[in-house]
């Protein structure tokens, strides 16, 4: 009896998946390799065929350096070419090469206007066969994000939006709703202690602010290594900077 019921439920699930239009079938994930982070995400990693939003915290809202490097680390671990759409060409590629994103893989599309960045992203996402499509944007309206999400779902390409604003005060725009599957904030933390004078491995405070079918979480991580991997930083328990973050957002 129960076996028959199981069969019926499985059949129903398949039919629902078919109705949803091939989305569920293709939904595979790119794990971070850090169990704490992967457990917080449904499917055990960052979903392909979906839109993800990254932003910096503090002064990172303007320069977006940590968010861009985090995106580059994820793009480095995908397969295939990466299209990077932007309006301000101030990315320094040697840094991206140091997290494993080879310059041959990155194609830059530089537009004059924000709207053109959105159009380029949508075109690249619906082309298919790319590893990831990254766009640096100030504003991400609801409708635009839905278009990007749908384009990503059709082809199974990962879409990444790096939000960077012109002024820190504009960054409360990040609270507005979009259909992005996950939303992250990457803030810089003091680097790991070294026994000698010098700057150790950079650390980030990673906030998973929104995730579909999952719960928000916070992590202290070591920044991307030469293969784009992050890992949970050992000294994550004593965080003394929580007061600082709340000032800006």
């Amino acid at each position, binding site marked *: 009896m129960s076996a028959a019921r199981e069969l019926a439920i499985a059949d129903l699930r398949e039919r629902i998946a078919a109705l949803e239009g091939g989305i569920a079938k293709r939904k595979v994930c790119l794990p971070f390799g850090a169990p704490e982070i992967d457990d917080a995400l449904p499917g055990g990693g960052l979903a392909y065929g979906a839109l993800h939003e990254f932003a910096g915290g*503090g*002064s990172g809202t303007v*320069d*977006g*350096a*940590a968010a*861009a*490097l*985090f995106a*580059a680390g994820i793009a480095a671990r995908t397969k*295939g*070419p990466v*299209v990077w759409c932007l309006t301000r060409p*101030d*990315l*320094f*590629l*040697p*840094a*991206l*090469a*140091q997290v494993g994103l*080879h*310059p*041959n893989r*990155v*194609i*830059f*599309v*530089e*537009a*004059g206007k924000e709207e*053109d960045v959105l*159009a*380029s992203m949508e*075109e*690249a996402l619906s*082309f*298919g*066969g*790319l590893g990831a499509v990254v766009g640096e944007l100030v504003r991400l309206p609801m409708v635009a994000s839905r278009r990007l999400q749908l384009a990503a779902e059709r082809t199974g390409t990962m879409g990444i939006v790096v939000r960077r604003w012109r002024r820190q005060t504009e960054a409360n725009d990040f609270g507005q709703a979009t259909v992005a599957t996950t939303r992250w904030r990457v803030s*810089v*933390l*003091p*680097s790991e202690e070294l026994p000698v*004078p*010098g*700057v*150790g491995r*950079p*650390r*980030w405070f990673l906030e998973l602010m929104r995730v579909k079918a999952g719960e928000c979480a916070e992590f202290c991580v070591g*920044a*991307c290594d030469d293969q784009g991997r992050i890992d949970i930083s050992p000294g994550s328990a004593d965080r003394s*900077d929580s007061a*600082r973050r709340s000032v800006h957002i």
Partner: protein
Amino acid sequence: MPAAKAQALFRGLMLVDADPAADARRLDMIALWALEHYSPIVAVDGIDGLVLDTEGADHLQGGELPMVTKIFNSFHAKKLTARVAIADTWGAAHACARAIKRETVIIPSGETFRAVEKLPISLLRLPEKTVADLRVLGFQTIGELTNTPRAPLALRFGPEVGRRLDQIRGLMAEPIDPIRTAEMIEVSRNFQEPIGAAETINKYTGRLVVQLVAELEKRGLGVRRTDLFVHKVDNTIQVIRAGTAKPVRDIPWLTKLFRDRTEKIEPGFGIERLVLVAAAAEPLEEEQRASALIEEETTDITPLIDIFGNRGQRVYRLAPIASDVPERSVQRVSAIAEAIEGTWVGHWRRPVRLLSQPEVIDAIALMPDHPPRSVTWRGNRHKVVRADGPERIFGEWWRRPAELEAVRDYFMIENEQGERFWIYRAGDGVDPETGSHKWFMHGIFA
């Protein structure tokens, strides 16, 4: 100036007979070159000029200014001096190109008349006799002639003067009859009833592409530049040019490039004829795709690059250059360039964002070898908690002799909040020859 007078002025002057026929042939060749590279509508203008309708074609070169600079430079490389002008009308561009002292000029849209009113009437493309007679009457500039009542002028000189004046100001249309070569592949479609709806245009463009591809297949060619001429009922022509990064003979790819931009077509009173021309074609052989037993999944993204390029966006890849100076270590290469072996070397960490112009900062530091204790950048003071450095970068004297002694000492600094910056000091901190010893902010780390 007579030849005898010239010879009297310069001893040993070399004289060559004028050869108008050969000049015209060369001019035709230059016109064909321009047709392939710059614009679908090119015609020979007089005996010494070319006229190009660049509307809708300049974005492929990155805009009007890069386009005119490129045109001038390609002549300059052949040791020819060219004058390039862009204006709203053929007449204005003709006059400006011949009057300017600079190499290139772009007359902003709508300011055509202001630009030409001070120019002499000899640039009005009138017969020489008419110009001489007008001078006798006291007319010197185009502006003076425009402000004169038309009727007496027409009575004395015929309609030509008024026509040229209207053409230079854009009051009268002056279509350019484009040159064509024999081997150019062209397919066209006439409409009994003028069409105008976007879907109809799309449908017939699609059919023309199919025809064109069939023609190309017969000859084993692929197109690099394709032009769609839209003839409207009011005798105006609009052209859409699509460029591709490599020879193409693929129906969906080409159709997509045109469909993307059919919204730019203004049908006006209706379209009566569509012509699709392969302006530049290159041999394209069939090639074998899969050769190994295991099919490797590689996607050819050239169609995507073409879509971006035809929308007027800059598409590029970045490649390493062997240079220690950070701003010189990266160059832009074509997005479809060959894959580059190797990457940047060095184990020093590099910032994610590099400021396009290093910004002067105030720093409190112990010279010569120590990192600053604190820096002030854009009005914010950062206390330095940790630092790495110096990483010394020497000037490249083989590029600029002034850099022979120049030195930069780079430091990576971290403040209390964990923000990491890349700063440098111009000079080694001891010898003033090596730099000004000022501190600069150059990049932001993640």
